[in-house]
């Protein structure tokens, strides 16, 4: 039991996909766990802007921790989906080779995949790969197929994990930007920029791009996280270029290349680029890189049209050397580093949760399973997934499911209200939870409706509503 409201067994810094998986894993034990997030909502960093791929396990050598966690993490997604109901589909991955040279690289990937124990991986002739993916261009020579790869909506995954962790007793604190920390006896005291203080026996550093800063605050290892930007284009769900599976090019030494991804919610994503940037908050897109994406994607699927583009965005990978860095600190006690979680971090994240739990256990954290742990998240009906008959039944029970707020992604008022009730009270939070504003009009029609619902449900005044916290207010004054 909690001794006081601000004392915890474990405090996790960062509510991205790593922190969320760790929190949810620890929520199964008799522990007081705090999940600290500097942003206004969870998944607002690297976890919201990435490819959303559950990787196939053939890109990395088993000697790396990242490869082992990737393979293990991949296999954990089906159960997580059954428990937490987030969009995930094991649609499979193909790697397309466009020259004879690339076929040799494909063979290497295949051997690595076989060595990694990837189930069902196969080398494909030109005929086979075009059968799997008829939209590939005429230059395709052949390729690789990994049926176990898949796609996931990364923010929804994090939302579900955190939701479930909170349901099982984890304390989520948003806008908690760690500023200072000290250790007294067996306990860390952690202070946020706004003056809030918590205490914890163990601290897990899952601060993503800022894991280096956090490590320094705790007097732990000195390392530097570098940001590598990836830019993307999002294509309309009605594009004729939508593939059946995730389409990869043959990877380079720096990245897995630019992909074509049929997202779990029906749109298509192309990208990412890979450019080192100094500013860890620089998620601006650039003309040159965006042109590169279209060109590169078209070498694989020529039918991609510029008019299919709905929006562009960029995300930052937290890069620290070749591998993940997940270990107890060798400099300070009660501190676990979870740093450098770049691709395939999303895939590996469920296994990272498990791995960190084991580290904490070895370090002396006593784990007693909760008798009443509830692994299930209650399902939110999504109007766009219902047949007219199912929708009719639902509207009879709750009329606001019949009030369509977002026409492009078909999101009802009830879903917006549910998002707000779950704490997503910014326009971006509502977008990631419901998909409203995420479709082809990009909020042109529904933004004003969402603003009104937000004011009604939260009691916020017009000038308190933001896009994603901070000074990102939407409205300046009243007329």
């Amino acid at each position, binding site marked *: 039991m909690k001794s006081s409201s601000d004392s915890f067994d474990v405090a996790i810094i960062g509510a991205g996909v790593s922190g969320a998986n760790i929190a949810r894993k620890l929520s199964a034990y008799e522990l007081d766990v705090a999940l600290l997030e500097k942003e206004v909502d969870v998944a607002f960093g690297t976890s919201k802007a990435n490819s959303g791929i559950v990787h196939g396990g053939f890109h990395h050598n088993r000697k790396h921790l990242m490869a082992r966690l990737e393979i293990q993490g991949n296999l954990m997604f089906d159960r997580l989906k059954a428990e937490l109901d987030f969009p995930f589909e094991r649609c499979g991955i193909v790697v397309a080779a466009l020259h004879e040279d690339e076929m040799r690289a494909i063979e290497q990937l295949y051997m690595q995949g076989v060595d990694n124990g990837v189930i069902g991986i196969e080398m494909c002739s030109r005929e086979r790969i075009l059968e799997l993916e008829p939209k590939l261009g005429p230059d395709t020579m052949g390729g690789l197929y990994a049926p176990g790869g898949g796609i996931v909506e990364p923010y929804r995954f994090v939302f579900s994990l955190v939701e479930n962790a909170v349901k099982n007793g984890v304390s989520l604190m948003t806008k908690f930007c760690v500023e200072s920390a000290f250790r007294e006896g067996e306990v860390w005291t952690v202070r946020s920029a706004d003056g809030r203080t918590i205490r914890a026996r163990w601290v897990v550093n899952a601060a993503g791009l800022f894991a280096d800063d956090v490590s320094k605050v705790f007097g732990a290892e000195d390392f530097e996280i570098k940001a590598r930007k990836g830019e993307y284009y999002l294509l309309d769900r009605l594009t004729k270029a939508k593939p059946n599976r995730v389409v990869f090019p043959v990877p380079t030494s720096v990245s897995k290349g630019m992909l074509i991804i049929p997202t779990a919610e029906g749109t298509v994503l192309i990208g990412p680029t890979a450019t080192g940037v100094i500013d860890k908050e620089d998620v601006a897109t650039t003309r040159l890189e965006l042109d590169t994406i279209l060109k590169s994607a078209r070498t694989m699927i020529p039918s991609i049209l510029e008019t299919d583009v709905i929006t562009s*965005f960029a995300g930052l990978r937290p890069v620290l050397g070749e591998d993940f860095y997940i270990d107890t600190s060798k400099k300070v006690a009660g501190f676990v580093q979870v740093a450098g979680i770049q691709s395939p971090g999303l895939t590996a994240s469920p296994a990272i949760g498990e791995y960190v739990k084991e580290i904490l256990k070895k370090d002396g954290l006593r784990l007693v399973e909760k008798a009443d742990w509830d692994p299930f998240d209650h399902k939110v009906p999504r109007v766009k997934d219902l047949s007219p008959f199912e929708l009719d039944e639902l509207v009879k029970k709750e009329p606001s499911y019949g009030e369509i707020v977002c026409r492009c992604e078909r999101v009802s008022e009830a879903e917006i209200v549910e998002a707000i009730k779950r704490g997503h009270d910014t326009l971006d939070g509502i977008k990631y939870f419901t998909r409203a504003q995420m479709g082809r009009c990009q909020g042109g029609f529904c933004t004003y409706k969402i603003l009104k619902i937000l004011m009604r449900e939260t009691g916020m005044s017009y000038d308190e509503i933001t896009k994603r916290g901070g000074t990102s207010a939407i409205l300046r004054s009243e007329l």
Partner: protein
Amino acid sequence: MKELKFDAVVLGGGAAGMAAALELVSRGRSCAIIEREEQLGGILVQCIHNGFGLIEFNEELSGPEFAERFEEKVAKTGIVALCSTTVVEMEVEGEEKVLYCVSSARGVERIRSKVVVLAMGCRERNRGNIRIPGSRPSGVYTAGLAQRLVNIEGYVPGKDIVIIGSGDIGLIMARRMSWIGCKVHAVVEILPYPSGLTRNIVQCLHDFDIPLYLSHLTTDIYGRDRVEGVEITPIENGALMSEKSFKIPCDTVLLSVGLVPENELSKKAGVEINSMTNGPWVDSTLMTNVPGVFACGNVLHVHDLVDYVVEEARRAGAFAAEWLGGKKPGKELRVKAGSNVRYVAPSKVDATREGNKLYLRTLVVKNEAILEVKLDNRVVRTIKKGHVQPSEMIMLSLGKAELEAVAGPDPVLEISIH
């Protein structure tokens, strides 16, 4: 599930939808309008400026006034107006169209009809559609959203404004934002000529000393949480002059970069779309490739004036009523967009009928232009035009005199501008 049946169902209760429905009921057909917003009127409701109705009513009205005149007429007829109702599915079962519609008040209803008139209008193109790079701060709105926020909701989205694109809504909003005390620093247009109507350039920009940067591309939107400014770059002889880029600080960016007909529902029902207009291909009776499905207004092609929209919609309603009565077009000729013409709608004319109305847009800006109509390579009509530009729609009426002397199995009517 409740089931309803009508001769015709009109999708969309804006100007086009109301005009088409009125025409259908005046010809003795039962008709419903399905409208997703709470009230009829469509986008007119937020267009509180005047300039509407000069052709239709011979007087200058505001958008809401124009809409109200039609709403009053609709209320006096037997038209069933289902507002706050969204169509979730449209299926075609032989002659019959089946629509599933949802509303909070009535749940899902199945509506059967022989005719469906598409009148859903259009949406604004957004930042992603025109690929403006940069950060993703708050403060970037389409001009129509800003218009809604200011005119209906009563909120001011920002103080220092840059408008990207010189479409009519952007121009109207430049004036509107100036009136409410905001500073509009610039209107930036990629093309060498404005996209909006000349009268709007004069009344909304010149009268307020708002600079219009023609042949300028917006190359960056910057600012972390909220917009802090835009970078614009001149285009000279088709090349981007990066060294001449400059920044305009602002806290708000409004986009007026074109409109796209909203045909997602049409596509799902098998309606074929013309990629030049983003609207359905229609024959001489404004009927799409799906028999019994007609289209009019901005869902067919984007119009300049609502007056033209209602004129076209009335004809769609009349043709739909005639189709219900079993009347088929006579001898149809294919219409082709020739030199310097972006598109012509509809894509067929009826050689046996008077008053085939054609709407077209030019690809070029030209003084002393000649509009040339050729039938199987024979000039059947030429019209002198003092000035043509892409933003001004051109109308043309053709009858038996031009169309009757048809030879060959697949006669083509070609329209060009020289």
